[in-house]
């Protein structure tokens, strides 16, 4: 098992008996890659993201088999807070993630938990990166959905994790906001961050992802370099994935 990157080794998971969400998943997400994860509704995409920082099996109980490693450390061996330093998670609905009084406090929350230093510098840098610097003192609940999603990303960026996991971040965004978000992610990826993104819009994935994982009924039906995966149109159709249109 190589040290850097995220390794998923024969992982199966079910919340309840007889309802298997993930069935024998084995994959490796290399450090510095831009990994897209797609598949039909209920194919196990969101469950897959919860493996990546140990939320499954530590926080979410169920029938878990196999092993997941972050930089060579088994996600069962240390608390989720340990992996929070290296794996940042952005969930699908930003409304469900923000609960503090100001944007600044929202960003501070994770930094205090992880005992990180240079808090103010980290906050201003993270907000600057997502173009939300002037909202530092705003109440997160008064922001638009797109702005909230950027704040959620800023919360993760402030912690400076190696891996950034996003679960359908564009599901509630319009095209322009989605494109802006992808441009930010692309910039982060160029700076060396590993991006793992669950997405239905394969057009974005074709444009930005370097590596693809296609899930179907809890199994990986296709994986590899993005261009190679997207060229297998028949298999994509069988997995219920939209064939992306190449950008002009």
């Amino acid at each position, binding site marked *: 098992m190589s040290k850097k990157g995220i390794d998923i080794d024969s992982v199966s998971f079910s919340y309840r008996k007889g309802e298997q969400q993930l069935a024998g998943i084995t994959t490796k997400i290399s450090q510095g890659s831009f990994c897209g994860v797609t598949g039909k509704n209920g194919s196990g995409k969101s469950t897959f993201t*919860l493996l990546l*920082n140990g*939320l499954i099996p530590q*926080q*979410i109980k169920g029938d878990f088999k196999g092993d997941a490693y972050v930089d060579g450390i088994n996600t069962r061996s240390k*608390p*989720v*807070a340990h992996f*929070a*330093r290296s*794996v*940042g*998670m952005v*969930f699908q*609905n930003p*409304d*469900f*993630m923000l*609960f*503090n*009084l*100001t944007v600044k406090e929202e960003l501070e*929350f*994770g930094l205090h*938990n*992880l005992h990180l230093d240079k808090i103010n510098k980290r906050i201003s840098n993270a907000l600057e990166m997502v173009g939300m610097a002037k909202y530092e003192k705003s*109440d997160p*609940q008064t922001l638009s959905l797109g702005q909230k999603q950027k704040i959620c990303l800023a*919360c993760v960026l402030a*912690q400076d994790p190696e891996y950034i996991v996003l679960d359908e971040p564009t599901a509630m965004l319009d095209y322009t906001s989605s494109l802006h978000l992808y441009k930010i992610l692309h910039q982060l990826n160029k700076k060396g961050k590993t991006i793992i993104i669950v997405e239905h819009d394969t057009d974005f994935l074709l444009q930005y992802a370097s590596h693809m994982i296609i899930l179907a009924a809890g199994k990986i039906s296709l994986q590899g370099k993005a261009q190679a995966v997207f060229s297998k149109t028949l298999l994509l159709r069988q997995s219920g994935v939209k064939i992306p249109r190449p950008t002009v």
Partner: protein
Amino acid sequence: MKKLISLIIFSFVILNLKDSFLLSAIFLLLLAALKIVPSQRPVGKRLKILLPAGFFIILLQLFFHQSHDMMTRFMFGYTVFIRLLIVSLSVLFFMSVTSASEIIAAFAFLPKKIQLALTMTFYFIPTILEESDKISMIQKSRGLRSGLSSISSVVIPLLHRVFQRAETLSLTIVSRGYEE
């Protein structure tokens, strides 16, 4: 903090005031104030809930305290009811002029863990009200009529949404390094 203390003192004074005319005047003043301040929840809706309770309180007073004459018993019931109305509307007024952030900020002296629990509670109250309004609107558009039998069609989806929200929030907190 000042607003919260004022509300507590005001409620204490109202609960100890016995002059029904003065109480009626305060009630009318509060109604007028709520007309000026845009309220989060309509005043009519609040009164609609309280009126049956008031009717019940007055009725109880008429049946008991038989040693007093009818008018005294009625006025006694009325005073209790008007107090209830004033306290309820003053809370409504307080909520209309105070943001959740201000309310939570008033508890800054508490330990961090308790503050976090309070923040989440305050965050959840308006969220639940908002969600229940949305679900009720959706169910009405599907032909739901008001009544006891209709409660489950609002409560069940509401519980699902609330649990889903709470679960995601809990996962978010843990994935941002929070440890018990």
